Every structure is written in C-alpha cells, then in structure tokens.
C-alpha cells in the first residue's frame, strides 16, 4: 500500500479520477493477480508499474481480462480503488499494440465537466512515460469550435467528454465516420448518472453509438450501490446478458462519531448553531476539515457563525453552487495547496476531484441517506488502508436518531436503493430531433434502435409515434402546424429535418438539466449625486434564484457569499447589493433539507424508536424525550404508524408519524386535508417535516374519531392516490413546474435561440399559460403526460406514498391526548417557520416554543 504522505503516487481516479495526484498509477503491494489476466498486460506495462514499485490490482486485471474478450463489464468499487485506471487500462494496452485503425478508439464519459481536463492530464503521464502512441483530448461545452472541427477531421484515440457531448456527437452527420472504429466506451460515475434524466438521454445516445460501432464494449464504473444488477442491465443493450460484475477491494470501514454536545439539542430547525463552538474546536484539532451541510442557506449560516467564533483567525472558506465560479476555483486551489483549515460546503464537493489532504469530515445536519454519507465521508483520508474520520452534528432531536441510524448503516456499508430513471417522453422527443439532425431516418428503424436501450425497453410503438408526431408538428389533435413541421417526409419515406436552423437550435438546447431561473448578484457601490443615492454595479458575487430575489424589497438584508448584504434593487444584468454592517440578516428561507430522508434510513429510525433497549446509546436529553413520549402517549412499533389528536388553544390537532420524508408528507398533507374537508372536519392547514405531519382543524378531531364519524383507516386508505391525487395535482403548482421542465427538455420552448441568448425570463410564452390552455383543450397531450410522470416520481413521491399506505394498512395506532406529546413538539414548531423575518419573529417563536415544551413535558 502507499506510504504515508506519498501523495505523488496515489492511485489515479478513485471514483472519478480524483486528481491532484500527479500520475496515473496503481497501488503498490502484494498483488494476487490471476495469470490469465496478467498475460493480457504487456511487458511495457509491467515494467512501468514495477518502476514505480506498484503492481496492478485484482479488479483492474479482471476488467482487462473481460475487455480482452470484448465483453462489457461493470466495475463496482469504493472510493479510493483506482477505478478510473481500471477503465482506461484495456484501452491503453490495446492502443499500445498499435493496430492500424482510425477514428476514436475510446470514449470516456463523466458527468463532471470539471473532471475532463484533470483526467486527460493524469493520462498524459503513463502515455508519455511508456512512450505510447496514444492521443488524448477533451471535449466539453467549453471546447472552442476550431478544436471541435479538428476533432471531427482528425479524431483523437481517446476522447474525454460529458453525456451531453455524446448526444451532440451522434447528432453530427459525421458521427458514423468518427465512431466507425470505436472499441470502448467508459462510463464513469454510472451510479449517479443513471438516476437522472441525463442518464436517460445518455442511454439513448448509446443506442446510436451501438448502431455505428456495434463492436464497442462498455465499461461502467460505479461507487458501491445497493442493487448492481440494475446497472449491469442498464449498461448493455436490452435483451442481452447483463454485463458481468467486477468488485473492487473494500476499504477500511470509516470511523464515525456523533457529536455529544454539552449544549441543548434543539427541538426543531436545521441550523445546528448550538454546536458551533464544538465544531470550531474540532476544526482546530484537525489539519484540514470539510464541513458538509445540506443547503446553501445552511452553508451561509454555518460559515458566518464559524467566522464569528474564529478567534484564532483560521483560514476557513465557503463553497457552494451559487457562488461565482472564479471564487469557487480559488477556494479549490487553496485547498489543493493545503493553505485552508476548513471549507464549509454543500453537495458541490460531493463528487469529483480530491482537492486536498482532508483528515476530517464534519456533517452538519442529518445526511438523509446512507449512500450520501458514505460518499461524503470518502472525501476524507482518500486511501483505502486508513479509515476515514467523520463527525455527525445533528441539528435537532429527530436528527440525533437519524444520525445514529446513518452511522450504523455506514458502518455496515449499507447503501440506499436508488432506481435508474426510465422512459422519459420529453427526453425521447429531444433524442428524436437529434436523430434527425444526423440525417434522414426511417421511423421503424429508430423505434427498433430506441427500444434497444434498457431504459426504453418497454416503450410502446404508440407512444413512440406520439413522440415523433410531437417533434414534427407539436402533436396536437387540431392539425394546425403541418405546414410548419420540423420533420418532413421525403419521397423515399424517410423523415428529414425541414430546416438547417433546427439543427443549430438543437445544438444550443441539448441536455436535460433545467436550471432554476438564476440572476447574478453583483456587489454595488452607492454614490451620492445631487443628494440622490446612485447605485453602481461592481463585481459578480454569484447567482441566486430569481424567485428568492423577487421576494426582497430594497433595504432587506440577506446572507450571501459569507457576507450580510443589503438588497439595492434589480437592473438589466441582475441584482445589486451592497455590504452592510448589519449582523442580523434576513436569511434565505430555503426549505430545511433539500434531500428527502431515504427509505432505508427511515426504516432504521423507526426501528430504533421502537426499541427502548437501544436508547441507551443516545444522548441523555434525547433519551428523556423518548421516555416521556412513552409515558404521555406511546412509542409506535416499527411497523406501526402513530396518530395523535389533541386540542391546543382553540384548535384541534392531528399529528401522524409516517417517517417518509418531507416530500411524501407534503403530498400526504394535501390529500388528507382534502379528505378531512369532505368529512366536515374543517381543516385549516398543515405542515410537514421529515418525520411527521401535523394538520389542524376547527372541529374536535379526537371526538370525530372517537364516535366513529371519522375512520382513520378510511382516511389513510390507498384510494387517495387515485382521483384525489389527480385532481389535486392537476391544479397544483407542482405540475406547472414539471410541465415547464418537460416543455424545455422536449423542445417546445427553446432555452436559447441561435444568435440570441435568451434567458428563461424572456421565453416566448409563459409555460403556465401553455399548461392551462393545453389542459383545457388537449388533456392527453404527451407533454402533460411527461410532466405528470415527473411530478409523480420526483416531486410528489407517489411511489413512496403508495408503499407507505400499503405498509400501514391495519397498523394505525391512535391516541387521543389532552395536550401535545413530546414527539409532536418538533413538527408543531415548524408551523409558521416557513416565513421568518428578522428578530421579532424569532423572539415570538422562541417564546411560543418555550410554552409548548413546558406543556409537553408535564408528566400529568
């Protein structure tokens, strides 16, 4: 194994080519290599490995072995396993043998654009040192036109690129020429890409690659996943044998602690500010710490609090997706140089390049999923032999349970199950237009090709034809646009693009990532001129969501980029803000945790709750809280769902504890209030947390349940996912949002038009208006279906809700209480939390919270 501090020789491409390691390499040590595979490794490679005191790992040789037979293969290996080299090794070996060929030999696809340059640089070392006749080039959205043009004429042996670029490549009329001698496709970070629409689009592009280069094998590289079989099937054409699985060597189990704070752990909220002194002490004791949080607003808050506690002037930085790219690069460079002591960051540092020698990962707030926690912990101590160090800081009492559940799951290396995304009609529409850009095609042949993707294996011909019709003329029952069709039928029956402008527009709009509408935030100077304040724009600090900025009035303060800023207004370039001396910002009110609690962790939390024997492992305050719950109400068994009803002030409350995540609870709340309304309970409102749901009403809910007028089993019956759901969704803003995404991905609305870069704001017609009109006049339109599918999948969590309702059938435990129970306090505190401004409300809330807690903790 590598010697300590020998960073130069760290294996390249753990996971994703973590790359400030300076060479492609492998880890030295005792290799137990199979001879058959060794025989595929030429002497030149052996010598190169040996010269560095390294030898290839088993899984690298196993991949080589499969490749030599021309087989596709899935390599699943933890971070730090030398995965990327395993992917490239077969190609380097083949290219070293120098068979006469032309065109691209190997296409490497990674979801992270920033990695491309890094990977290419890391490949250069072995290529140069072994004197291999191999050319390596990158191609991303930033690659200049001249270079692309040259790549078309003189393709490199190895092209390193992103999924969107593969779509563009196959939409090029010269694709057949460039890909004719392709031997290998390497798909990195496969676990992360298959769960998104990017993966769906990539799977379609792969069907085109397969048509041009049926001989090309595929190598999938993935972090550890719960269900590798889905990836094995995804990787190869539908109906063929799933790709064989090669497993990397597992790393040392991580060492995970949970902060045992001397402070009171709050009842609710997500800020974890109570623990700042303790977090600061940990940072001081470590060499380099990554502080992960779940949202950008949390990052801003934690950063600011740390800065105030920073009596030793430690170099601490902030890194999140809204910050200006230049600023982020600076932070990354400082990390790589080792000049920082801590970085507060969001998921922007989840994947990718290993920027520095991190020896501690602190996770503020619950990690929401076991896989995410493992991924983040993997950022520390990037070596297989040494355990990663991590500290979890729960931000409220339920999160203590969740952190404990996550700790146990991570210890067992248990992964959350995430399913590949399949059969997206809007993505298919984009692919069809791309196919037309490459040249005339036959509908039958394209259908056969598309259903060759595992993701579209169940696509019906009817839906395919509808998509095709949609691409051509919009797919409307009123055939108004035949003369403006994008696809025209030629005399030979093939379909072709009606105008070259459409290909140009396709190239500008390719991809499935629909950004929130963002506005740049610039630091402004205020000058007095003739007694008037004149605001002048300055340097860009970053970007914020337009909806957030539109909430602000001039003079409002907010936390951004680690500073308290005063909003000065909008101009044609975006928002203007000035620095302020105010220390009490109005904080961006993003929803608490951005990620939903994974089903797997939820199950563990329920089990822990149900088993008082394990409570001894919990901090005393939490233990007391649960014990009191047992006294005052009941602690549900793992398979049960507890429902409590109680009066408070002049209202009546119902609290349910499904533990299915905020998203599912929100949907459940919408549906339950509709039903309660029909039952005459007169519900007034509801609030959902990650763990529970509270509904308040005018009528006495305990009484209604007690006298049988309200049947809980009927209230929670699965049939709510039928008409109720459909009726609610059709009117909700959620549908409008998913419809907008589908309209953009499906090409109804162009994000960018040739010659003028349009922003979302200037889009031709507001998609809400289109949604309304379409819903009234053609409710079965394909884009409405696409929007519906996405809403059901992503925003509403219909599948999870369905599984939940099935699980609790006959398992509802009801308690009618006189007052609020301890378990109910956190979710009740969420009421009204969605819009807190300034200090006055905070004081009110604190006051209200105090009352509530007292009430819940009374023993009799």
């Amino acid at each position: 194994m590598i010697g300590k501090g020998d960073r130069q020789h760290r294996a390249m491409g753990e996971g994703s080519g973590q790359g400030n390691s300076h060479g492609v390499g492998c880890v030295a040590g005792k290799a137990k290599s199979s001879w058959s595979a060794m025989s595929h490794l030429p002497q030149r490679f052996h010598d190169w490995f040996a010269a560095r005191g390294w030898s290839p790992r088993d899984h690298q040789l196993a991949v080589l072995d499969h490749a030599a037979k021309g087989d596709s293969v899935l390599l699943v290996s933890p971070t730090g396993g030398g995965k990327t080299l395993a992917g490239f090794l077969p190609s380097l070996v083949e290219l070293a043998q120098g068979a006469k060929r032309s065109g691209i030999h190997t296409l490497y696809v990674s979801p992270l654009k920033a990695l491309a340059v890094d990977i290419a640089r890391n490949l250069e070392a072995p290529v140069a040192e072994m004197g291999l006749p191999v050319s390596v080039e990158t191609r991303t959205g930033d690659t200049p036109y001249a270079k692309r043009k040259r790549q078309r004429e003189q393709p490199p042996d190895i092209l390193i690129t992103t999924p969107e670029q593969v779509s563009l490549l196959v939409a090029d009329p010269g694709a057949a020429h460039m890909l004719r001698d392709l031997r290998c496709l390497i798909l990195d970070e496969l676990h992360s890409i298959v769960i998104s629409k990017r993966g769906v689009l990539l799977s379609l592009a792969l069907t085109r690659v397969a048509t041009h280069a049926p001989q090309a094998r595929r190598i999938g590289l993935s972090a550890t996943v719960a269900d590798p079989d889905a990836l094995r099937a995804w990787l190869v054409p539908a109906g063929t044998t799933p790709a064989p699985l090669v497993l990397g060597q597992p790393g040392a189990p991580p060492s995970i602690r949970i902060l045992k704070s001397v402070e009171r752990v709050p009842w609710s909220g997500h800020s974890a500010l109570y623990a700042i002194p303790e977090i600061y002490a940990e940072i001081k004791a470590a060499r380099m710490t990554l502080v992960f949080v779940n949202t950008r607003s949390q990052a801003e808050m934690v950063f600011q609090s740390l800065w105030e506690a920073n009596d030793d002037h430690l170099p601490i930085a902030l890194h999140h997706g809204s910050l200006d790219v230049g600023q982020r690069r600076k932070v990354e460079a400082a990390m790589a140089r080792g000049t920082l002591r801590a970085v507060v960051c969001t998921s922007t540092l989840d994947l990718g390049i290993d920027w520095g020698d991190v020896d501690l990962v602190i996770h503020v707030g619950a990690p929401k999923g076991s896989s995410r926690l493992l991924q983040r912990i993997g950022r520390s101590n990037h070596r297989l032999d040494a355990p990663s160090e991590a500290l979890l800081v729960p931000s409220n009492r339920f999160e203590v349970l969740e952190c404990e559940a996550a700790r146990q799951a991570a210890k067992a290396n248990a992964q959350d199950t995430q399913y590949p995304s399949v059969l997206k009609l809007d993505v298919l529409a984009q692919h069809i237009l791309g196919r037309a850009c490459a040249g005339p095609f036959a509908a039958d042949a394209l259908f056969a090709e598309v259903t060759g993707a595992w993701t579209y294996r169940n696509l019906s011909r009817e839906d395919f034809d509808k998509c095709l019709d949609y691409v051509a003329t919009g797919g409307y029952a009123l055939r108004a646009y035949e003369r403006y069709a994008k696809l025209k039928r030629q005399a030979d029956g093939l379909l072709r693009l009606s105008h070259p402008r459409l290909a140009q527009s396709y190239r500008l709009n390719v991809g499935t990532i629909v950004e929130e509408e963002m506005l740049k935030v610039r630091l402004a100077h205020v000058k007095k001129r003739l007694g008037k304040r004149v605001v002048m724009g300055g340097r860009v600090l970053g970007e914020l969501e337009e909806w957030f900025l539109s909430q602000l009035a001039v003079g409002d303060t907010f936390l951004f980029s680690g500073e308290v800023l005063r909003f000065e207004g909008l101009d044609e370039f975006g928002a203007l803000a000035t620095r302020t001396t105010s220390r009490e910002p109005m904080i961006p009110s993003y929803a608490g945790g951005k990620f939903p609690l994974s089903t797997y962790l939820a199950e563990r939390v329920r089990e822990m709750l149900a088993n008082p024997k394990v409570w001894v492992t919990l901090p005393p305050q939490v233990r007391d809280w649960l014990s009191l719950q047992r006294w005052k109400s009941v602690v549900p068994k793992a398979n049960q769902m507890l429902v409590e009803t109680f009066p408070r002030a002049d209202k009546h409350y119902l609290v349910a504890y499904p533990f299915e995540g905020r998203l599912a609870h929100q949907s459940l709340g919408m549906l339950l209030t509709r039903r309660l309304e029909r039952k005459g309970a007169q519900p007034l409102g509801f609030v959902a947390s990650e763990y529970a749901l509270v509904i308040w009403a005018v009528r006495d809910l305990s009484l209604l349940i007690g006298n049988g007028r309200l049947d809980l089993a009927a209230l929670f019956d699965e049939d709510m996912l039928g008409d109720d759901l459909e009726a609610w969704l059709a009117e909700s803003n959620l549908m409008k949002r998913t419809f907008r995404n589908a309209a953009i991905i499906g090409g109804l609305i162009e994000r960018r038009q040739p010659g003028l870069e349009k922003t979302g704001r200037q889009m031709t017609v507001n998609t809400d208006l289109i949604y309304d009109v379409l819903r009234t006049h053609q409710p079965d339109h394909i884009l409405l279906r696409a929007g519906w599918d996405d809403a059901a999948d992503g925003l509403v969590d219909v599948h999870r809700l369905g599984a939940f309702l099935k699980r609790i059938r006959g398992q509802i435990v009801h308690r009618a209480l006189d007052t609020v129970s301890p378990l109910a306090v956190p979710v009740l505190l969420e009421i009204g939390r969605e819009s807190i401004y300034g200090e006055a409300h905070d004081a009110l809330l604190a006051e209200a919270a105090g009352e509530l807690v007292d009430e819940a903790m009374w023993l009799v």
Partner: protein
Amino acid sequence: MPFSPKPQANSSTRPCGLSRTHKIGLGGLEFLPDLSGALYAPDFKALLVADLHLEKGSSLARRGVHLPPYDTRESLRQLRAVIAAVKPERLIFLGDSFHDGEARQRIDAGDLSELRALTGDFPTIWIAGNHDPEPPEDIGGGIMGEVALGPVTLRHEPRALGDGELEIAGHLHPAASVAQRGHRIRCRCFVADTRRLIMPAFGSYTGALGISSAAFAGLFGDYHVWMLGARAIHRFPAGKVR
C-alpha cells in the same frame, strides 16, 4: 398512470365575473372591472377588451415553436363567458386584437366563424393597435383609431394627456405584485389614476409587464391597481405594490 384530468364543468383557464365591490371612476363615469380582465361600461352597455393577440400561437409556430394551437379558441371562449355573464350590448376591442398582419389567414375556420358570430350578435369596434394597424375587414364590426366614450377616449397606446383629457388604453399588459407573509403574489391588473386607466391583456398567451417597469414611468400620478386574483379582484394603493 395516464394523465387525464378532466377540466371541471365551466372551468376556464382565466375565471370571469364582474366585480360587485369595485368600481373604477373616470371623468364621472363608472367602469366595472371583470375578473377576466375585461371592463364593463354600464352607461354605454359596452364591454371593453384589450390585447387579445389572436393567433399568437400560430405566429410563433412559423418559427418552429409549436405552442398548442388553441389560444384563439380559448380567448374566444373566455370572451363568450364574459359576455354571457355581463350581457353587454356592444363590444369594443382596444387594439392588438390580432397578433400580426397574417393572423386572419392562419385563423382556423371554426374560430373564424365564432368571431363572425360575435360581431353579428353585437355591434363591434376594433381599435387599431401596433400589432394590428389594419385589423381584418371581413370579420364584421368597424375599425377605428380611437373611440370617444363620453369624456373618455379609448385608444390602444397611452398618450401624453392635455388638460382635462381622459383615456382608457391597453398595450402595456400591466401586472402588479404584493408581498404577504413572505410570498410575493403577482397578477395581471387594471391601473388607474383620475385621468387614465390601463387595462390588462385579455389574450390567453399574453404575458404581463410589472407596473414598476420603465414603460409605466410618468403615466400615472397617485394611482391604484385592481389585481385579478383567482376568485376576486383586489384593490391596492400604489405604495403597496410593485
């Protein structure tokens, strides 16, 4: 799961209903705002409608943006609903009724006959707008540059007003927003002071422009807005909205 939300009976994408509580006064006349964005002048039994933008969908379709081709149908349906509720005796369109000069050629036969039925049922005036400087002549009704309604002039684009001049115009597609409990709510609106009233756009694909944008600068003194909510019209003084 197939997506087939049946629109409720009588549902329309933009609700209609004459306000019982709000009246907008101008030059001693009273005007009643309708939830749909139309305006009723009871003294003249006239229904005023601004910025229909018929055939905006097909106009964009020529450039390959295939928006649902139902916007004209939807706008006319809305119009029929307002007429049925308000029961006016005449119709006045304040310009930009047609999205472009070729709208007449692209309009669907069914929609065209509906349009002709309207002008047959009611005396109609089409005021010319910048999108339709020459509205089609073969659909019935008269074409004018401006219309005087007592002391008030109806025209498409607002103009600099002389002493004692009053106008009702369209063209600007006004919208306003208010902040409440941390949420900013934005709706189309009527804007008026004592001399001028600007109507919201009626057409189903028409966007809207915030009243704090430069286009509105200098048009109003101390004004109010009447915001078109989902179920009711809400009136706010200028200071409350942007």
